[in-house]
């Protein structure tokens, strides 16, 4: 299935991290940054974060919720969950293949 995820270009990797982060529940921007830093050890700068959020939102993969104070939470949409699942299972396949080949060559 072609999801158009690759069209994100250099924003594909942070995009994936953000989708994974939102898969764990709705979060606002700073919470995503912290979550991603803790779970993946990667820090996404605020500029990149919002460039990616705007793209993901534009594709309908995430949606914003009414703001609490000024911090606006986002959540994964059904379409976003589908894309993420597709992307992750592709990575699982890749990982499995790679590990198999590594195991085969001494």
């Amino acid at each position, binding site marked *: 299935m072609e999801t158009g995820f690759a069209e994100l270009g250099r924003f594909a990797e942070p995009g994936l991290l953000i989708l994974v982060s939102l898969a764990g529940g709705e979060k606002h921007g700073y919470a995503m940054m912290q979550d991603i830093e803790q779970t993946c050890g990667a820090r996404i700068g605020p500029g990149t974060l919002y460039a990616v959020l705007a793209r993901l939102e534009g594709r309908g993969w995430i949606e914003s919720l009414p703001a609490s104070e*000024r911090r606006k939470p986002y959540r994964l949409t059904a379409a976003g969950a589908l894309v993420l699942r597709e992307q992750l299972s592709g990575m699982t396949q890749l990982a499995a293949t790679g590990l198999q080949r590594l195991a085969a060559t001494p």
Partner: protein
Amino acid sequence: MTNNQHQIPNSDEQPGRTIPWLWLFPQAWRTRYEAEFRALLEDCSPTARERFDILFSALDARVRPQAWAIEERDRQLVLQTSTAGGPAIPAPGTKLTVGGSGGVRQQPEEPGERRFTRRTFLRNAILGGVGVLAAGGAVAGANYGWPNTTGAFGKQIIVPLELVPDPGAAPFKHNDGKFWLINNEDGLLALYWKCPHLGCTVPWEDAANEFHCPCHQSVYDRNGVRLSGPAPRPMDLMAVHLDDAGNLIVDSGAISERDAYRREQAFQVG
């Protein structure tokens, strides 16, 4: 002393308050994201590198609006949430709900409209180009204007006030800046140590209270004015000033020739 300059706040100390490059984002982006983006910056205190990341995102949002523009079906949601959230900048963004992707092409262009026409492409390309140039210029300018404490020749050099000689005393030799700093009755002079005759380094002769060039015996008084010898003019001057923080700055990149000594050439420390 110019103490009035001290009121200017040091914006680097409060990363959350001053938002770098925010004005560079397109209006439609700001309408939608500015309030929450500000909130995020207050929380996360971006590093210098991340500030540049913000700059690039701003240029990206301008140059490739089609990459993030929100589809028609989402615009209703945008309107609802942005009125509920109350963006800091009230919006000409009500326009976000009109002018769908299939809209009438001949419609006059509205400020908040996202359709990607040749005109908007040109405008974005130009603005993006100007932005890149401005950013480059800002970096170069900051580099140039920043007083270089290591004091390489050609840069602005901070001279600690305790190194400034007393009036009438022997001059202070600044090796990196290639100048003599001398304190005379009219004030300070930063004399470029290169002899205007053929370029030898001119040493100070303490016993004579003069500068004596060893190459061709040009002799200069405490103001750098030629007393004898083949030199065609007095020793050259470097610009001296106090910066906003009260540091004494000798600009070893600002060297000027002169034909005689005048009182205005001397700098009064205060």
